[in-house]
């Protein structure tokens, strides 16, 4: 069996993409996930399963969705699912693409944008343009949506064909997918062995977001070789919704995998090694029509930070700096309705790319010196970015860490807070503003807290 395990792993070492994708058996069990973020790790497999339950997609069929309660994330992401036949086996393939962020803090998910439940939009590797154009006509649908779906669908179908070629190159069994289940068992056994090697204890942690007042009450323990994430004391949503259970599960799994230093791929065997418990109506398991924008954009970062803290307490030797509680989101809309977005601290696009067709000129991108918290390992510094406005534009923004400093770990110092200004005037945490030509917008993004106590400088004794 080990040879098949190595073969599957080698296949996915060759098959790499710059978007999140997941390949599952026809029963919806994850063979491999290539996720660009932890949330996708829980939601994308769920989206595949939902699409399968509703439509049983055949090779070349295409199902579109963005509904968070069907396995999507925020409404400005795009999830596509297709299938591929290889011999007598069938595989389901899902991909996800992020579109320009829409900033919306509302009372219901339906006010956040156009919610698309699983919808068949392609057959035999051909898109149904009629349905797409009907979707595009909706008032809440973003600009050039059909073009973006078309590009993404081509990428997904190419991925499916490449997977088929590699499957054949690697000579995997095409008469049955039983080998995949053996691979899951092998992974499960191995990860459970790693779980047994860690200190067997219980960690309790309470945290609260200062801005939203959501509470996390987490008990982390090992039970029957499974890592249990028990969120039973966590609060209900406090006005802006929260995360879906799929997303919470993805964040828990990725944090456990990092803690265990698992070097293999993510597959069904790993999902079996964790158990996530949330109380009903908790902000970590919201249901329709709860809004999700805040949950996915900030709540997920907050949960991740709490998980890192809990694991750092579990085994201080494996402690990591606490990630920031959330990204800084900016959205520009020019007079023609064209939009562009900025998400800090995600990988920045090129300056020239960023300026093309936008109502601004970037005048500065720099490291925000001395902003990371001091520690044995200093926290990562934030960034400084300045825009000079060229044409009238509407700016919407949503910031985190505007009041609460990013925490240090194990006596590390705290990092610096976020500041957004227009011509020197500090802006609130969330809002919209009309920018005028000549104005300067400036963002000082938050910086991580330090890890452990900073080393003390040796005193120099003057002889």
């Amino acid at each position: 069996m080990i040879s098949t395990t190595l073969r599957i792993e080698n296949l996915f070492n060759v098959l790499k993409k710059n978007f999140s994708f997941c390949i599952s058996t026809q029963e919806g069990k994850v063979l491999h996930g290539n996720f660009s973020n932890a949330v996708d790790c829980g939601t994308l497999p769920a989206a595949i399963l939902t699409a399968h339950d509703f439509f049983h997609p055949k090779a070349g069929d295409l199902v579109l969705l963005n509904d968070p309660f069907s396995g999507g994330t925020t409404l400005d992401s795009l999830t596509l699912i297709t299938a591929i036949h290889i011999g007598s086996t069938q595989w389901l393939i899902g991909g996800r693409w992020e579109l320009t962020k829409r900033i919306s803090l509302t009372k219901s998910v339906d006010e956040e944008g156009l919610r698309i439940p699983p919808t068949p939009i392609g057959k035999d590797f051909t898109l149904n343009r009629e349905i797409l154009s009907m979707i595009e006509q909706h008032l809440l649908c973003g600009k050039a949506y059909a073009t973006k779906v078309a590009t993404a669908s081509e990428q997904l179908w190419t991925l499916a064909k490449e997977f088929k070629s590699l499957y054949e190159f690697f000579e995997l069994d095409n008469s049955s997918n039983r080998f995949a289940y053996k691979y899951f068992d092998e992974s499960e056994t191995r990860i459970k062995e790693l779980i047994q090697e860690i200190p067997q204890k219980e960690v309790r942690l309470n945290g609260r977001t200062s801005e939203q007042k959501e509470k996390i009450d987490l008990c982390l323990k090992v039970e029957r070789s499974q890592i249990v994430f028990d969120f039973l004391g966590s609060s209900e949503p406090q006005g802006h919704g929260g995360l879906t259970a799929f997303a919470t599960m993805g964040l828990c799994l990725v944090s456990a995998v990092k803690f265990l230093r698992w070097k293999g791929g993510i597959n069904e065997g790993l999902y079996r090694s964790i158990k996530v418990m949330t109380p009903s109506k908790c902000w970590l398991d919201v249901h329709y029509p709860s809004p999700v924008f805040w949950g996915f954009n900030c709540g997920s970062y907050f949960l991740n930070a709490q998980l890192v803290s809990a694991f750092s307490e579990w085994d201080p030797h494996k402690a990591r700096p606490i990630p920031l509680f959330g990204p800084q989101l900016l959205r520009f809309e020019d007079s023609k309705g064209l939009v562009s977005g900025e998400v800090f601290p995600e990988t920045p696009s090129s300056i020239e790319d960023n300026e093309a067709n936008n109502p601004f000129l970037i005048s500065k991108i720099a490291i925000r010196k001395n902003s990371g918290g001091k520690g044995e390992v200093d926290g990562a510094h934030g960034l400084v970015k300045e825009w000079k406005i060229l044409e009238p534009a509407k700016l919407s923004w949503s910031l985190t860490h505007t009041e609460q400093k990013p925490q240090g770990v194990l006596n590390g110092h705290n990092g610096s807070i976020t500041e957004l200004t227009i011509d020197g005037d500090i802006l609130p945490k969330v809002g919209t503003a009309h920018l005028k030509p000549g104005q300067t917008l400036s963002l000082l993004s938050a910086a991580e807290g330090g890890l452990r106590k900073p080393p003390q400088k040796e005193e120099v004794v003057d002889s």
Partner: protein
Amino acid sequence: MSRKIIYYYGNYFSEVAHLSENEPLCHRVNNSRISLENSLQDLLIKNPEAQIEIYADNRELLRRFSKNEKFALFTTAGFEDWPCIHPELISLRIPVENIFGLTERVDSKGSVVTPLQDSEVEFLISKLNLMELKHVAIGLIHSNKNKSHEKIACDLLKKAGFNVQVSHVIDSKDEIERWCSLVTLIQQDLALENLKKYLQEKLKDLFARCQVLSKRENIEKNLSGVEVYLGLDGFTLSKDGQNNFPLSIQPTSEVHSSHWGFPGIKDTELGYEPGPILMGRGHKLTFLDLLLLDQTPAHLPEVQTNSKLKSRIYDQLKVFNERHKEEYRDPQKIADMLLQESFQKIRAEILFFAKDSTKIKVTGNISPHVKEFLRIENAAFAEDFDFNRVKGLGAQ
């Protein structure tokens, strides 16, 4: 008439060809055992009539001869930190103290927003002189839309005696791609110059009979189709003679105990100092050990297979097999399985890279040993598999 010797300075091994009217006479030099200057000196003394053409492999050239070499980067003011922020630019490791901002700006349509003043460049020139920096790379924002500012700075720098590379001559989609190529260009210049200086210093009068030539890629541009090079020096892929992409498995990739509790091939390369176990001095198991475990290739005299070395390899394989002892008791069976799976991966990488290209040529001195493993139907295995790099250079 003076004879010509071609010296191909590779990553781990150099190949030397003595050109004559008949077949060239070739031999290989292990770079970690004998230094470049000593090897050249030997050749020059033993062949008093010969002229040597030295070709350096880019990777080795850059690694050895531009490591601590400094150059300045001129960019648009406000973006001096950009090479320390963007992940692709970080990998270039440009020292931040050598990045200088010029007060100038061109917008995305190519119009000048802030004109560049000569005095600013002149001020920076005096600063560079104080810092004793002689090489400058100029990468300004939107210089592909309007090259005037880069040209002004370049002219002033050249006039002051600096070696300059500009970004507007590079065809690219954005400043990231442009700056990456720009820095590689300047590093190659520096490395080549340093190599020349180094050899001049070491070889003294003998250097008069040496000619140092630049990158091998230029010479390969006439090639068409996919070339798979499988040599002691490395495993690479190239299409139509452009750029060499390393395969994920290399001859000295380390074999270790993987997360599956079974031997696996690691990403790290161990190199040839001390080298694979089968070369007599190494202690760590490499892919090459598995491949040549049962062979005594006449064309690779560096490799020796004897029972002592073989049992050392078997012992390591047994230790690395923590969890599958029942299925794999025999270490030879482990080695066979690992080889088969590794070549399955190499084969997939080649076919995936080749895509629709039907012409696949396999060269390199390891290639005769992998024929049965690779099983690529339309691949042509070079008949002259050894020293094909240096012979190729000699044929130019």
